[in-house]
């Protein structure tokens, strides 16, 4: 049976009605129209649906919507502030780290979470930091460059 819950998404309180088995990914895409978060596999294998949950990167397809109550959820739509891109978004554009773009939003969210906890990483740490997100177009090369560019010089 559907339950009424409140979710804090991109600093706005949203009221949604969800079945207990429905995932955060489902709610974001199908109920709230936040389609920047992509579904690539729905089985926790690709990382396309990565969002921030209390500043940690999670696969939204692996989180029940009910369990996201009371937590701070940030999606790709919430990264831009006052129309200005987040430095990670800027860096992805500048480095040419975007091809088909389907992994891009999840990858940016993973990089964002990673940099919050490790603002001055080595290249190897960056690679480990985004290893939970698959990309089939770029070979990750320019993605690593982008994350490096968005990090604080170490």
């Amino acid at each position, binding site marked *: 049976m559907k339950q009424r819950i409140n979710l804090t998404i991109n600093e706005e309180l949203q009221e949604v009605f969800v079945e207990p088995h429905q995932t955060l990914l489902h709610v974001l895409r199908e109920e709230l129209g936040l389609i920047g978060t992509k579904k690539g596999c729905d089985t926790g294998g690709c990382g396309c649906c990565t969002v921030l949950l209390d500043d940690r990167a999670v696969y939204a397809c692996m989180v029940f919507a009910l369990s996201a109550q009371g937590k701070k959820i940030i999606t*790709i739509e919430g990264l831009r502030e006052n129309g200005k891109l987040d430095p990670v978004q800027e860096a992805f554009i500048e480095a040419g780290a*975007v*091809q088909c*773009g389907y992994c891009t939003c999840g990858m940016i969210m993973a990089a964002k979470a990673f940099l919050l906890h490790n603002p001055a990483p080595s290249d190897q740490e960056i690679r480990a930091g985004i290893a939970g997100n698959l990309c089939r*177009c770029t*070979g*990750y090369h320019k993605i690593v460059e982008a994350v490096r560019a968005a990090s604080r010089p170490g």
Partner: protein
Amino acid sequence: MSEMKIVGKRVLRSDAYDKVTGGRGYPVNVRLPGMLHAKLLRSPYPHARVLHIDTSKAEKLAGVKAVLTPAEVPQIKFHPVFFSPSLAASMIRDMLILSDTVRFAGQPVAAVAAVQPEAAEEALKLIHVEYERLPAVFDPDQAVQSGAPRIHEHAESNVAMHPSFSFGDLERGFEEADYVFENTYQTQRVHTCYLEPRVCVVESDSQGNLTVWSSTQHIFGLREKLAFALGLPISTVKVVKPPYIGGGFGGKLDMGYIEPICALLSRKTGRPVRIEQTRYEDFITTARNPIKIHLKTGVKKDGTFTARYAKSILDTGAHATHGAVVLMVHGFYGFLLRYRCPNQKWEGYTVYTNNMIGGGFRGYGAPQAAFAVESQIDEICEELELDPIELRLKNAHSEGQPHPFDPSFNLSTYRFEECLKKGAEAIGWADRPSANSMGGTRKRGIGLACQPLWVSGCIGFPDIYEHSGAIIKLNVDGTADLSVATVDMGCGQNTVLAQIAAEELGVPLEAVRITYADTETVPFDAPSHASRVTYSAGLAVQAAAGAAKKRVFDIAGRLLNTSVEKLEITNGRVHIEGSAEKGVSLGDVVKQAESPYVVMVPDGTQRTRLSEKGTIMGMASLAPTSNPSPATAEFVEVEVDTETGEVKVLRVVFAHDIGRVINPPGAEGQVEGGTQQGVGYALMENLVFDQTSGACLTGDFLDYKIPTALEMPPEIKCIFIESNEPTGPFGAKSLAEPCLIVPAPAIANAVYNAVGVRVRDLPITPEKILAGLGKL
């Protein structure tokens, strides 16, 4: 050619901003009012007859609007791949939208459309299907034996096709050889792993006309195939071009089951119907065909090839699909044309099995052949103590010679030797150790592989209508709208085509926008495949922009009181050559064309001539005059852990004659991404099926491993050798596919160089390395 302002510059992708902020233009996001969601009931058996389907319970479930069974589906046999009408007639039509014979586990047998996807899913469980199970065969070697289960009535011994080509005198060639090498190589079944699932929405209007939104690489092919399979005139089907698709790599070239099923369900319900495949469904939709290759090469002491015989057995799975054409490309570009060799024979077998069907995948038959030939060349070099670079060069084609496939055009630009020499220098080939000469448990090795000859489209082979088209329309604000049919699946064609248009028109890059297109509004184009879009669609875009420019000059010439020969456009301003300050803006020229009376000149009102009236547009629909070959050499350095058998790729140097580079970061991205797919093909990727039930055991990314950032070499060096191809748009040729064709043999050769273990079947797993080292 005057210096270029936009072509060749490092520009940012036009779609990057949208994609980093959410990217709305994917077909997976299409939703229509009243839309239903459909799901497919798939067979659990690899080979069976459907005796009876009872849908009564499913139909009664709340929310279910329609159920589709084979009885309600046109029984028109089709081939899901687009080819020109002349060639299509010879393709093997062996598929049905829904059939009462199942030939692979996962083949759809029924479909349900419901208000919610959950209801459709639930309804599938209520459909009762009575199957008569039939014996199945999964190994092509067994499938051709007498007594093997027959998969299609039309194919005796399960051989769908057996092409064979030869020239010279094979027997004499082998007699002239000082050495003959004979080996067998086996490649595996791998998936393209696009990240956006295959998805479509089909809407039927009240008269049955269809509008289709699909994650397709080819809108015209989908229109043609859908109309054919449904028995409809193509004019009743419109396919809308998706602004983006989330990767394709050949995996979205053909019509799937989902498009015709959605079409039938939409006609039945009068509502739009959507299917989004699950990742498991994607994994069993199409794959690169596994091929077993028997390769025999005759060679002189000095490394000159005298004869080559190759036999390729391709597992096409339950249906022929791409199996036949993949095999032909494999035969020609993989063996017969690859290097000079006067006496050759190649024969291939496309064999039906009860495995999943094959499909397109970047390289289309060439990676399998490259693995065999480029591995064997190194085996020859090892035995004859020859340098692998020298042997390849000794047998290489040369610039200016007639194209070995179609002598009606020449290899006008072909810098293969430069690729090898520059690549060798960058990797440090001269200091390469001899095989297995390092001490310690982690041994390094360097290897190389080439794709000496490849395509920039399909002219001549196969004849799939190598046409491209473009429409460019100028706006009063000096911008241009460009419409093309080719789908940007991520390779960056929208940026490259905009660069070509902007360069030709003399406007800033931002002034060109790629706009809406569907099968009713733009000229035909062949698919986004075969490394062809930059070359072929680029030529059409250049021609369309040139036609628009001509009209601009006609009007501007009179406005500026000069002859059109003296005009040029710089940064959106039309002016007399050499005096950029005197001129008129492109936007004002368009205004003049679109308005009857406009004050345009300092000395008064200028009336536009009738012949100049109207929107300034340029259009082109053309076939390129050639099919210039890129040339590729890749060098890799690996480290092999002799205790775990693990192979790490440390460095890649990719040297490639691709003609003029239009957008350098885009080109590098092709190499880097191709390397990821190549490392996966070489070391880890493998679709595995249960050999009794036929079920896919690697149907998600937890079981089907592709390289993450950690498995990728930290260093990928791109060396682009920029020959200036005279037939290409601003000198360009092609790039996409060789990036994935060469890594597997290069890595195999590097592994041999490191530890002296020759692996002839992909992927090169730790188990195979340890077995080769005698440790398993």
